[in-house]
């Protein structure tokens, strides 16, 4: 049985230009290592491939039980020119939460 990011963490998306940043924050610090191992930039890149050209970078924030994913070329050219309804990509955190990870057992 797989587990979703949603089951272990919460997330928020922010925008700057054509780049989206999405935090992934563990509810429980003990899940941080698992997320670090499984929620790789490659896996995130794959989940966003129909939305963002990438690249995707991941920054660890262990103190905050969190990671910051920075996804380039994700916002239709940027807030000011994007044709999207959600020009800021605020809803993109939900793509992150829906990513399935392999079961730990």
């Amino acid at each position: 049985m797989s587990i979703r990011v949603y089951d272990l963490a919460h997330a928020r998306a922010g925008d700057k230009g054509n780049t989206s940043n999405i935090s992934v924050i563990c509810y429980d610090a003990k899940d941080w290592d698992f997320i670090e191992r499984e929620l790789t930039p490659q896996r995130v890149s794959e989940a966003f491939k129909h939305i963002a050209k990438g690249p995707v970078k991941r920054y660890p924030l262990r103190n905050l039980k969190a990671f910051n994913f920075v996804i380039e070329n994700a916002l239709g050219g940027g807030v000011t020119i994007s044709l999207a309804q959600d020009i800021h990509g605020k809803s993109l955190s939900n793509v992150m939460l829906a990513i399935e990870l392999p079961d730990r057992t």
Partner: protein
Amino acid sequence: MDDAKLLIGRGGRPAAMLRQNGISFGRGSAGMKSQGVVRIGAGAGTSDDRMVPALELAERGNIDYLVFECLAERTVSRENLSRSKNPDQGYSPSLHARLRMVLPACMRNGVRIVSNMGAANPVGGARATRKEAADLGLGDVPVAVVLGDDVSSIVKHRPELRLMENGEPLESILPAMISANAYLGADVVCEALNTGAPIVLSGRVADPSLFLAPMMHEFGWAYDDLPKIAQGTAAGHLLECTASVTGGCFGWPGKKEVPDLALNGYPFADVRADGSIVIGKTPDTGGRLDVMTCTEQLIYEIHDPTVYLTPDCTLDITGVKLTQEESDRVRVEGARAKPRTDTYKVSVGYADGYIGEGEVSYGGIDAIARAKWAAEVVKERLRLQGFKYEDFRVDLIGMSSLHGAPDQRPEPYEVRLRLAGRTRDRKAAHAIGFETRAMHMHGPGGAGGACEPRVRDVLAVKSVLLPKNLVNAQVVVEGTL
């Protein structure tokens, strides 16, 4: 009204501040200063933010400062256009309503106001502010104005500057440039506070700097005292989106509950001279403020968390520790910073054609197939008329408009078809909505509820870095101190 007086104390600090008509400004029981704490409230995090929570802070938040951050990326461009039509305008249109609401409470409770609502015309905004104050019977209220963020005349002569987004020279967008504004820092806002004016109004200033400035002013923090500047910047970043740290943009039914979300309050920072920070929120308001809400906001819009560039410092949040002290109070520790860079980020706004949009709905059997067919018909009509688009998009709202991938989604019962395109040609932009609406009469069966054709001007923004020594940030005072 002519008995308004501002007494400047030793060291250029306001001693008794404004005294008039029984209103004493800067003393009285309100505020936290008597306890060695300066309390800085967040009154707005965008130009469209709610207003009443700011009044709640001013009335019963026990704050010393109220900061209104009201400039989105392209707001200054838009206001520059307003100013070109009417030289008295160009400040944030929400200034009147916001100040009318909070000024009486702020003056009564000695709350100083800091805001970037000056937008493209801070002096005009200051005059409008003074008029609002006079009309409210608050007398002659001086306003310190931060100038120098408008660098359009400087960058015009530097076509070789590289756009941060694509590396092309600034020259490529100069002919269409509407505005160029440097994100000024806390240093000049602090200078404005040093004048003693109860209200400080600026154009473009980096969001966290609006909050850091009152701390520097109150505690005399040196601009190079990095541990304190780091803490103040982190606090500013936590506050700059108001309700985003008090339960807004956060809740999830059954998973992340937020009490009284309809009544969530705005946050403040309690700051001490040593740089210690606790974030809190207006008592008896809805929402929640805890480590989870603070963490989401702390990482929001940050890229490399060791290099968050502001005009004041290079912030590193990787060492930050957030601790729940009591209900709705979170301590912030461990922000670090490296020195600031020697450049300002400059947002260059320019006209970049038009975006046209149209929408129409389909429901029931084969709703998706009919919507897709209609999209093809509209595209064919636009092609036959010779219209060209730099970017074009078809959305199936209810299925794939937010996260794409229509082929992987289950079909919904009903769908709203949306077509949007960006173009230099206004007629081509209008034609999208026109042809989409025509699906009522000329498209696949059973189309309903098309919207009127929509066209909007595109105010695009790109950025350059400008050496700080080319920028003349300064303070002028409207009115008499």
